């Protein structure tokens, strides 16, 4: 089965939806998604943005699209993360792309609900306003096939103390799955929250997840957004996250790729008003034939904004890492401060890393820097530790762990940090 068979499936779904067409705004959005996907299609490695990550191999005509009725919630999947977030965590389960909650709930000034066809809330205005349907094949695909949108709307000046955990999982016990979770976060002015999004698969069949998360951070709001891909199952992940950050607001993204055969994350952050800031942290720890590709864009569209990005990856065996980090500084974005660094540690001769920083600076009064390194463990340091009685494997694990932990230390939430540290330590076989 091939990409063309897959595209054909999407087309027939689109025709089905066309006959069922309504004047509803949500249905119109999905039709828009279908037509954009028809035009953009699944990108091949000839496409610059998909050069190192061949997505054509994971989309085929056998994927079952839009089956939302499986709904045996995996008992363990994501539960560990939920537990780490403490007793007062608010959990939203998104199963095969649909929120497992019918009612619209309001918790401590936060609206939590599923935005579907027929809905008429004000949040419709934000939908697809940041993740542009016509620009990105997987935003188009998600828009075309997604079931509904999970909305997390923080009202003005609400400081949510309770973390929110969005657990996206697929149950592939009976068939393969293409699932398209969609999340919209609106943080009104002066609000703050921590949202943790994690992705999981259970079941024997293949799953492909094409999630889209849109985040609107309004003036003076502070949003911490953690994304964890730790898929020990059959899941493959092609995700897209976009955020706009307004005056004096902060968006902090923390991405951890700790397991998964195939992970691609696109992250686009636009600083649209003066004194907005962005933090982008990323950590990947891979082995076997795992792959993680992080494409990030920080777009400085206003003066006096600041962004700081740190991505680190550890690659063992035949695993592959890709980092592409773009920074744009628009002509009027004077006094921009933009810093980026990406570091890869290769633990095996067969592991590979492709890193590409890309800075496009059109303003003259800016402070920007970037640095990308790919290296191996310092043999001199390994010997130094051996000479103190630490065996070679333990010495390497200790140094590798320290390398990755530098990023994890920047993640929010004590419980979450220690869980991630424990995961990384286990994967690296560090005795602690």
């Amino acid at each position, binding site marked *: 089965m091939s990409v063309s068979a897959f595209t054909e499936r999407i087309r027939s779904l689109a025709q089905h939806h066309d006959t069922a067409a309504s004047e509803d705004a949500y249905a119109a959005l999905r039709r828009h998604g279908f037509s954009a996907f028809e035009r953009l299609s699944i990108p091949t490695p000839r496409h610059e943005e998909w050069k190192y990550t061949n997505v054509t191999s994971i989309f085929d005509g056998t994927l079952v699209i839009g089956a939302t009725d499986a709904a045996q919630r995996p008992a363990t999947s994501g539960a560990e993360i939920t537990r780490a977030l403490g007793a007062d965590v608010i959990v939203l389960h998104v199963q095969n792309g649909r929120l497992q909650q019918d009612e619209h709930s309001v918790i401590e000034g936060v609206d939590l609900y599923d935005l579907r066809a027929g809905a008429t809330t004000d949040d419709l205005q934000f939908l697809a306003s940041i993740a542009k349907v016509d620009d990105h094949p997987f935003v188009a695909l998600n828009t075309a096939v997604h079931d509904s949108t999970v909305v997390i709307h923080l009202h003005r000046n609400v400081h949510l103390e309770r973390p929110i955990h969005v657990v996206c999982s697929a149950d592939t016990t009976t068939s393969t799955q293409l699932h398209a979770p969609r999340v919209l976060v609106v943080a009104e002015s002066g609000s703050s929250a921590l949202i943790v999004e994690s992705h999981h698969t259970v079941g024997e069949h293949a799953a492909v997840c094409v999630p889209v998360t849109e985040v609107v951070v309004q003036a003076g709001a502070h949003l911490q957004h953690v994304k964890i891909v730790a898929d020990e199952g059959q899941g493959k992940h092609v995700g897209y996250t976009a955020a706009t950050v307004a005056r004096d607001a902060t968006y902090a993204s923390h991405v951890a790729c700790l397991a998964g055969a195939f992970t691609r994350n696109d992250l686009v952050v636009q600083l649209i008003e003066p004194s907005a800031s962005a933090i982008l942290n990323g950590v990947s720890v891979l082995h076997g034939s795992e792959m993680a590709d992080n494409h990030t864009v920080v777009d400085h569209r206003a003066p006096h904004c600041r962004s700081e990005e740190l991505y680190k990856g550890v690659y063992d065996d035949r695993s592959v890492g890709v980092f592409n980090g773009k920074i744009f500084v628009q002509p009027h974005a004077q006094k921009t401060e933009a810093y980026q660094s990406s570091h890869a540690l290769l633990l095996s001769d067969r592991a590979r890393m492709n890193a590409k920083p890309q800075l496009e600076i059109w303003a003259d009064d800016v402070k920007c820097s970037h640095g990308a390194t790919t290296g191996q463990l310092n043999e001199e*340091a390994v010997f*130094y530790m051996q*000479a*103190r*009685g*630490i*065996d070679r494997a333990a010495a390497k694990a200790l*140094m590798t762990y320290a390398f990755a932990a530098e990023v994890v230390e920047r993640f929010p939430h004590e419980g979450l940090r220690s869980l991630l540290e424990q995961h990384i330590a286990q994967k690296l076989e560090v005795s602690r």
Partner: protein
Amino acid sequence: MTPILEITNLHASIDGTEILKGINLTIQPGEVHAVMGPNGSGKSTLASVLAGREEYTVTEGTVVFHGHDLLDMSPEDRAREGLFLAFQYPVEIPGVSTANFLKSAVNAQRAHRGLSPLEPAEFLALMKERMALVEMNPAFLQRSLNEGFSGGEKKRNEIFQMAMLEPTLAILDETDSGLDIDALRIVANGVNAQRTPHNGMIVITHYQRLLNYIVPDVVHVLWNGRIVRTGGKDLALTLEERGYDWIKTESSVEA
């Protein structure tokens, strides 16, 4: 009495170049041996071969450590058996705190000897006590190992580690280099505090200065991969006065 260390006719090379050309050296319990010699004579090579650095190939000779074949052991086992090398250039290890590093090292040694790991409180108290020997601030424990330490701080840290691991044979490779006179005295005091009738030391130095503080029982002069002179502590003073050229001339005549 069994010697701590017995080196017999040791030859070692790196990348096909022979650096050590037949070293003989025996250290009895309680003895401090100084190894002196001009730059490039092979002092660090000898230390590296004893510590087990893989780049070097031993082509001939034997090294017996407490009755065991040292050359047969991995570097970590040598350390666990009581050999300690204070590095000429201590390595910076980002992200690994001095405390964590020492915990791994001490507990690896304890496990090797069938002992259980030390309790955290016990361990912390021990670290603080031993740091005081070299007048190191406990704040260093939380810093990444050697990262951003000054030259003197790195050398003191080496002697602190030695105090934690209580080796039976310590090899100090130019521990005096880069130290001002105050730091030199602190480091030397730290070393002297660890002299016992049961352990031995090899003090490698280019200058006689250190030996005013750490007074050796035996002084060897290493030149061109061989020990060309052995004497008492006065030999160091003679070298200070006359320089190494005197030895070089005499040795080439002999050779």
